[in-house]
């Protein structure tokens, strides 16, 4: 649905007299499949917004190619615009307009007739649970309500792909959860959703596949589960009476394992699959079991191994 090759963009920024070139995006290759929630995870300044703005035809790439929903970004930006929706990081509503006015205008800018724009707006307001506030000025909305209006504006024309730039930043946990539901609903309606975030849990829980971006480059891509498994698989920690450790170690010798004073740790591909097998092996050998824990590497571990920094710190 989205395919990019070697996308690049640098900015010249002036600091006083000095001119500095910032390489915001340096060669991004992406493949986003139809109907998935694709996540772009990266710290501040990684180049997420710049990539999105290129894909949304707002700025021209310095180099590289992209096809979005079948339209060529370079050759036919007009067609790309018709097929995509874009929700900017900083919002897009005007204080003195109401949500309904904004939606009707946006639908009409996409070519809808007045009647069509009105009915679509009513429908979208309904599905985003905004009907109650629809005719109040945007400046009176809460952060979460206003963000939902932004998303509604981005999908009013039923695009095949929608780009959401940090849709949950600044929202409280409840509004975030609400927003996740909205995004999943868009996928259920058949839309491809391209979302940026710097929340690990969001990338993990919401996205079907992610690319981790740092410093203008993609450092890793895959499903959150695959990425984490790539690190080391899962760790199963089996707590035992001290006397039972050696018996457990021999019963589990088929696994890659390390023994400690009162536990053994097994490195497995998929802990969820391994745990029942481990339990059966220990049971068959008559080893008394204390505790069993599954540790999963987090996306932060992935980021750490790829960049040498923790995403939480940056």
């Amino acid at each position, binding site marked *: 649905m989205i395919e990019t090759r070697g996308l690049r963009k640098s900015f010249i920024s002036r600091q006083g007299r000095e001119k500095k070139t910032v390489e915001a995006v340096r060669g991004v290759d992406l493949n986003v499949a139809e109907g998935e929630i694709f996540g772009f995870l990266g710290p501040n300044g990684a180049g997420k917004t710049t990539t999105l703005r290129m894909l949304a035809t*707002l700025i021209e790439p310095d180099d590289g190619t992209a096809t979005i929903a079948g339209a060529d970004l370079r050759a036919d930006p007009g067609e790309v615009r018709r097929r995509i929706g874009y929700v*900017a990081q900083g919002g897009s509503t005007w204080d*003195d307009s109401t949500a309904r*006015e904004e939606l009707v*205008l946006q639908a009409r*800018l996409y070519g809808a007739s007045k009647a069509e724009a009105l009915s679509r707006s009513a429908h979208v307001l309904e599905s985003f649970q905004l009907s109650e506030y629809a005719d109040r000025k945007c400046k009176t909305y809460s952060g979460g309500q206003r963000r939902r209006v932004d998303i509604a504006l981005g999908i009013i024309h039923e695009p095949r792909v929608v780009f959401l730039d940090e849709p949950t930043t600044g929202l409280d946990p409840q509004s975030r959860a609400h927003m996740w539901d909205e995004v999943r609903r868009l996928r259920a309606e058949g839309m491809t959703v391209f979302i940026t975030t710097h929340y690990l849990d969001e990338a993990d829980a919401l996205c079907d596949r992610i690319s981790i971006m740092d410093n203008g480059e993609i450092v890793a891509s895959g499903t959150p589960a695959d990425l984490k498994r790539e690190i080391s698989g899962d760790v199963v920690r089996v707590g035992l009476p001290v006397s039972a450790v050696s018996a457990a170690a021999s019963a589990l010798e088929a696994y890659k394992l390390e023994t400690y004073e009162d536990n053994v740790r097994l490195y497995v591909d998929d802990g969820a699959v391994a745990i029942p097998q481990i339990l059966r092996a220990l049971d068959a050998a008559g080893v008394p079991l204390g505790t069993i824990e599954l540790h999963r590497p987090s996306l932060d571990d992935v980021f750490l191994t790829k960049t040498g920094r923790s995403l939480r710190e940056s």
Partner: protein
Amino acid sequence: MKLFRDISLIFNRQMQLLLRNPVWIVVGVFQPVMYLLLFAPLLKPALGVRTNAEAYEIFVPGLLVLLAIFGGLFQGFGLIAELRAGVIERSRVTPVSRVALLLGRSLRDTVSLIAQAVIITLLALAFDLRVFLGNLLLAYLMLALISLMTSAVSYGVALVVKSEDALAPLMNTVAQPLLLLSGILLPMTYAPGWLQGVADWNPFSWAVNGTRALFRGDLGAPDVWQGLLIMAVLAVLAVAWAARLFAKSVR
């Protein structure tokens, strides 16, 4: 066809927001009325004319041109607010015509300027100003062209500088000499020769002369068509330039 549709969409939206905020009408009319009441009476002796009507004939067209120039040049502030709110970026991801993004706004400015001009003309009529309707309409055309041009320039500059802090001094620096050298407040006929020579290079001085000729009832004066032509050409250039900026990257 799409262009006209897009222009009217943007225009209607802008007009709706403008009318929702009626403060501009009070501010926009109060100031010129002050000029009419407090400044114009000084003019009768200064201009060496016999009647109030004659003084207004010179002063009112100048005042209207002044409003058109300044009203237009400061429209960029509104655009910067829209840029900041993300409204412009939101428009630019749609297939809407980029020319319409500019013209919809500039036409709103032009319409509100003409509304202001009508109010002022009506007041001046109460002070014995007399002008033929046809000439008045041509004068309004001149004002519309000026306002279209200055607001397009202001939007273009706003898109380049992107900040109020840069726009305000820039617009003032441009506007002051233009104003002084246009003979808006007093006709340049009283200026020394070298100053008149400089003023001839100021397009607005042609516009003011043309508008004054119209208010005088001198439709045949070359000032009229020259002023209109110069303003029309400049308006087209300004619109083309600013529309291109709307199409280019904006942040």
